């Protein structure tokens, strides 16, 4: 039973803490002084319109993108900057990244390896764990995501939903303390979204610490411990899912939710909806 109260716990109770994070690409401020924390076992969903900086934020957490300012603390240890205050070397960064699992929008499986090899690759070659131990764990993980039967298939032979379930198993095989999801269902056909969300829901229930960038409102409402709503690079509102979805505090969140009111439409954007133009319609005979 999860009885953590979603107020700010003290520092050492955070699995992840992001403090004053900023990032610009040229003149474009993608992230502006972003702060939030994730307690162990929490699932935090990052919501917001496309281009609001959610994916960049996620990529800054494991330093795939280098932030301009701010701090990221993973179990109290700073990511990217070593204790001496200098930027970490590649190998120090790699050692930190091993604790942060990542699931990608376009799966990013390694195409030359089979399903099983994809899951075993990094635990064996990066973490240098014994192969037979990793094999047993990898097979168990593949069973868990329902991909054991496909263990010898190459990624190219899988559907998007299957690829993403392998992607999740691959991330779990590293035994990460934190799991990042970058729009894990956005590239999937609608009928395949459910199988991936089911796996993620199980993980959330089992107490995996997760940060999920998603457009799946139903998933966020049901599985999130907390919602962080972003727009144009700033955190506009945070709160528990029930409050956020039924009574958002800010106008921007209200507007955002209105767009999804008719049901979860992945990646829906106002610009992608072509307005009915009476003039162009009248051209037709």
């Amino acid at each position, binding site marked *: 039973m999860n009885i953590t109260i979603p107020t700010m716990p003290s520092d050492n109770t955070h699995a992840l803490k992001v403090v004053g994070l900023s990032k610009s690409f040229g003149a474009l401020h993608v992230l502006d002084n972003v702060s939030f924390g994730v307690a162990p076992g929490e699932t935090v969903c990052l919501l917001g319109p496309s281009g609001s900086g959610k994916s960049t934020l996620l990529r800054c957490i494991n330093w795939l993108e280098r932030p301009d300012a701010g701090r990221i603390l993973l179990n109290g240890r700073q990511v990217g900057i070593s204790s001496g205050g200098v930027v970490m070397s590649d190998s120090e960064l*790699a050692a930190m990244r091993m604790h942060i699992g*990542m699931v990608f929008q376009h799966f990013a499986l390694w195409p030359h390896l089979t399903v099983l090899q994809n899951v075993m*690759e990094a635990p064996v070659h990066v973490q240098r764990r014994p192969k037979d131990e990793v094999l047993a764990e990898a097979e168990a993980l593949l069973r868990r995501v329902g991909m054991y039967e496909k263990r010898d298939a*190459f990624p190219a032979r899988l559907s998007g939903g299957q690829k993403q379930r392998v992607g999740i198993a691959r991330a779990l095989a590293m035994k990460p303390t934190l799991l990042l999801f970058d729009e894990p269902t956005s590239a999937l056909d609608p009928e395949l979204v459910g199988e991936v969300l089911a796996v993620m829901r199980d993980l959330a229930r089992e107490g995996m610490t997760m940060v999920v960038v998603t457009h799946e409102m139903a998933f966020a409402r049901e599985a999130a411990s907390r919602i962080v709503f972003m727009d144009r690079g700033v955190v506009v509102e945070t709160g528990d899912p029930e409050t956020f979805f039924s009574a958002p505090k800010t106008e921007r969140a209200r507007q955002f939710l209105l767009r999804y009111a008719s049901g979860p439409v992945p990646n829906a954007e106002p610009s992608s909806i072509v307005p009915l133009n009476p003039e162009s319609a009248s051209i037709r005979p």
Partner: protein
Amino acid sequence: MIHDFGIVWSERGLLLSGLMNTMLLSALAGFCALVLGVLLSTVLMQRARLLAQTARVFVDAARCTPFLLFVYFVYYGLPSAGLRFDNWSAGLAALIVYHTAYMGEILRGAWMAQPREPIEAGQAFGYTGLKLFRRIVLPPLALASAPVVGNQIIQIIKDSAFLTIIALPELTNAASSIQSRRYVPFASFIIAMLLYWALCLVVEAGVAAAGRMAQARR
């Protein structure tokens, strides 16, 4: 005509040793050019400007030089600059250096066409430097570029024929020697052509095997 082929048959020892030398030169040059080409492609992909630009100049210069002229330059030109090779070293060095440029460029092109995300996933999972390159970047790159690399090895086999002008006893040299001593140009040249063709078929079989591996992963 049958008689002419009989004459070529009687010279089979010479032809065979020419064929062996062509195979040896091509295999050595192909292997070295491929390995150096992999190194070159990593330099071409560097973000460090000066290094990448220097490599770029080398690739462009090599690709715009006729191979025959390059062999002349290495064997006759370099000695006046104080670098003297025997014909074997000169021929092999010319093949390797010249085709390294092509291999590097082939691999760079295939690398550019690789999706970025799997490599990024490698970094996110803790791969860096050489291990990232060897385990994550190179294998799909090798599968994707195998057909073009195979083509380049065929080019190496054919370019090795130019080395007859620095008196390397390879296949063309042997055929040429037989026809000039025994006056059987048609028979000796056509046999040499058939032997080159057979070598290329072997390379193509290798490429086809790599192609099947790539197909299963595509």
